[in-house]
């Protein structure tokens, strides 16, 4: 058997969820593969964090619509994760002698890949999720984990008290030791929200995963089953306070907001050292008729229209007289002449016909509850002069009707 050099840390990235709250954007795409920030996909952030923290072995657990994600990760070369005996692997559910199982929960996904982890004989395992935008040095968190001699360390971020009830809250003693998990509490006792980033000492995690797998009524989930079981058994569990930009992009609104944050000079997230697979396209061209303010533009775009507070991914075409405001236009989309796109997300290779009107600004909507980001799914053709209202979600199946 081939032997693998020992890795102190192995990262496991949970990328199998459907991300149903992203609607048409994740119809044919796993959530971590959703485009972000003009040239990235969400997964570039945790992957780049791993590499920048010196983690050389990364397993990506895939299950829902993995085609694009698998293709994008490829051999891992853009992230330097193509080592001879380490690197990145996409791990999908498989058939074994006992039978075939889908990943029934986050903990089960790791349990089914114990073999993958053990090849590297690691001391620690980092569990990450594929739906957060942040830059973090996992090494510092690992140092903290070692210093506290913990079995499990969970990264937490300070959230405003009024928002704390939307998060999983960790209540800790003064030294950071966790004594209670409070999932979406009505009356939060603290503002330490879990970021979904865990470091485990592998020996302990292995034991709890194996025990959990035996339990018939367990949902095999880290947050619901494994972490509470560890706490109840009196394991040393610590909260690691993280300071910096962090955003969950699991919903249309938060995905849009996180993109818009890149245009805000007061936001501290900088895209340096975030790696991605680069499409081979020439630099973008701005025509004499274009007007561009406060926007991000990637390679291969051709802009003849007006752009404000917007993000253009690679290879986007914007026709003469078209107006794009506070919107995200994903790779290869075409916005034809005179179209008006506001507060919208337009997915890959979609065509917005001439003079079509997509989305509305909050001021244009009488009842603010009806306002939201308009979303056009991938490979959709919006006909000329069509109108898509705020908060509407359209994809090729809708337009076919």
């Amino acid at each position, binding site marked *: 058997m081939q032997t693998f050099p020992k890795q102190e840390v192995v990262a496991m990235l949970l990328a199998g969820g459907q991300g149903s709250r992203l609607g048409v954007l994740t119809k044919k795409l796993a959530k971590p593969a959703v485009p972000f920030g003009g040239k990235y996909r969400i997964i570039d952030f945790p992957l780049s964090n791993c590499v920048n923290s010196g983690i050389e072995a990364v397993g990506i657990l895939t299950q829902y619509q993995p085609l694009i994600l698998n293709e994008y990760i490829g051999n891992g070369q853009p992230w330097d994760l193509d080592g001879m005996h380490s690197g990145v692997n996409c791990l999908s559910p498989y058939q074994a002698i006992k039978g075939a199982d889908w990943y029934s929960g986050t903990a089960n996904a790791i349990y089914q890949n114990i073999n993958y982890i053990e090849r590297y004989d690691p001391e620690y395992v980092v569990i990450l999720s594929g739906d957060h935008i942040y830059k973090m040095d996992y090494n510092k968190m690992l140092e903290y984990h070692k210093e506290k001699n913990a079995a499990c360390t969970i990264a937490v971020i300070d959230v405003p008290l009024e928002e704390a009830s939307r998060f999983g809250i960790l209540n800790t003693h003064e030294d950071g030791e966790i004594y209670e998990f409070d999932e979406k509490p009505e009356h939060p006792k603290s503002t330490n929200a879990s970021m979904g980033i865990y470091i485990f000492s592998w020996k302990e995690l292995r034991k709890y995963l194996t025990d959990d797998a035996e339990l018939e009524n367990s949902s095999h989930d880290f947050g619901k089953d494994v972490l509470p079981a560890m706490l109840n058994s009196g394991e040393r569990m610590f909260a690691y306070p993280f300071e910096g930009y962090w955003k969950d992009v699991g919903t249309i609104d938060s995905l849009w907001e996180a993109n818009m944050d890149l245009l805000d000079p007061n936001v501290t997230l900088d895209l340096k050292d975030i790696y991605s697979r680069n499409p081979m396209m020439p*630099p973008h061209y701005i025509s004499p008729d*274009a007007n561009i303010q406060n926007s*991000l533009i990637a390679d291969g775009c051709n802009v003849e229209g007006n752009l404000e507070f917007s*993000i253009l991914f690679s290879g986007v075409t914007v026709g003469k007289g078209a107006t794009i405001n506070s919107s995200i236009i994903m790779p290869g989309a075409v916005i034809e002449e005179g179209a008006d796109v506001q507060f919208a997300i337009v997915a890959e290779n979609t065509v917005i016909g001439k003079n079509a009107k997509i989305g509305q600004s909050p001021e244009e909507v009488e009842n603010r509850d009806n306002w939201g980001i308009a979303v056009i799914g991938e490979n959709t053709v919006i006909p000329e002069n069509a109108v898509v209202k705020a908060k509407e979600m359209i994809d090729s199946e809708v337009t076919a009707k």
Partner: protein
Amino acid sequence: MRSNDVLGFIFADTLDDKVPELAATRTMASIPIGGKYRIIDFVLSSMSNSGINNVGICAKSNFLSLTDHVGSGSAYDLSKRRSNLTLLTPYGGKNFSNYVEIIYNMHGYIEHCREEYILISPGNVISNFDYTQLFDFHAKHNADITFLYKRRVVPAGYDRPITFDIADDGKVKQVFVAPGNTDEVVNHVCGTVLIKKSLLMEEIRKALSLNELDIKRLIQKSVEKYSVYAYENKGYTAVISSINSYFDFNMDLMKKSVRDELFNPKRPIYTKVRDDAPSRYGLDSKVKNSIIAQGCVIDGEVENCIISKGVYVGSGAKLSNCIVMQDTKIGADTKLNYVIIDKDVTIKDERSLMGFDSYPIYIAKKSVV
């Protein structure tokens, strides 16, 4: 004949001496161009896209930027089990000034490669060319040697240009080595040629033994002995042979027809990848008719410019008709017109520099203005 039976061979320092400023610290082939490319990217990508697997690049000096840029060739898909990119730098301390000796000096490499044919290209041509057209033409006419030519006025910088008199079927009737340039449109040959390796090396050895070291004379004589053909490249082609042609090519990229032809998505132009973020336009930016690469921050005004990777344009700055190479910083309220600015330059606040369209000013790499 199949493309994988052709060895690609590029001279990286063609006409280096005609752009002394740009080539002061690099070869002709590795001069930055078009916002994110180096000149050699066009030939290398064309070769790779035409199915050539093996490419040698010959450079006599100043090759650090070239080796840094092309690396192992993986960006061009030329670094796999059966494909290779090899940099041929002068070995044994030998440095020759004529092509006969240079090619002979590379005989070890050329003869070692398994391909039967060799496609030689100069390092100053910009074109997205499908060489399989040339291979098919060569095979169809059962030619010994096939040159690529372009109908044009010989560009400034070619001191003794080679021009052809060509029959209707493409057979070369006569080879002229003109003593000077005229405004006449001619069949200009700038060095791209397809030939069997064995024939090339036989002729080079013969020429060496007779001490005939002028390759142009050799080409003239070959017409008498061999079946020599010429194939016209009808597509967009630029050759860099002066600072003006460098400037003009960059400005040509503002034309949609030129971009569409050079950057055909079915035949991409590859280059070394850099992980730059998308470019950011500030609240007061004003950009018209310009090519902008990634990683830039534009807070000022930019018109008719090529802005390369990682450039910063400060607020209130006004750039027109400029070519700005990578990672240069341009301070606030600075005015620049017809200026070519090399890499890593810092132009401080409130500076003012003006060139003219026939005489762009050049600012050297890493200068501080």
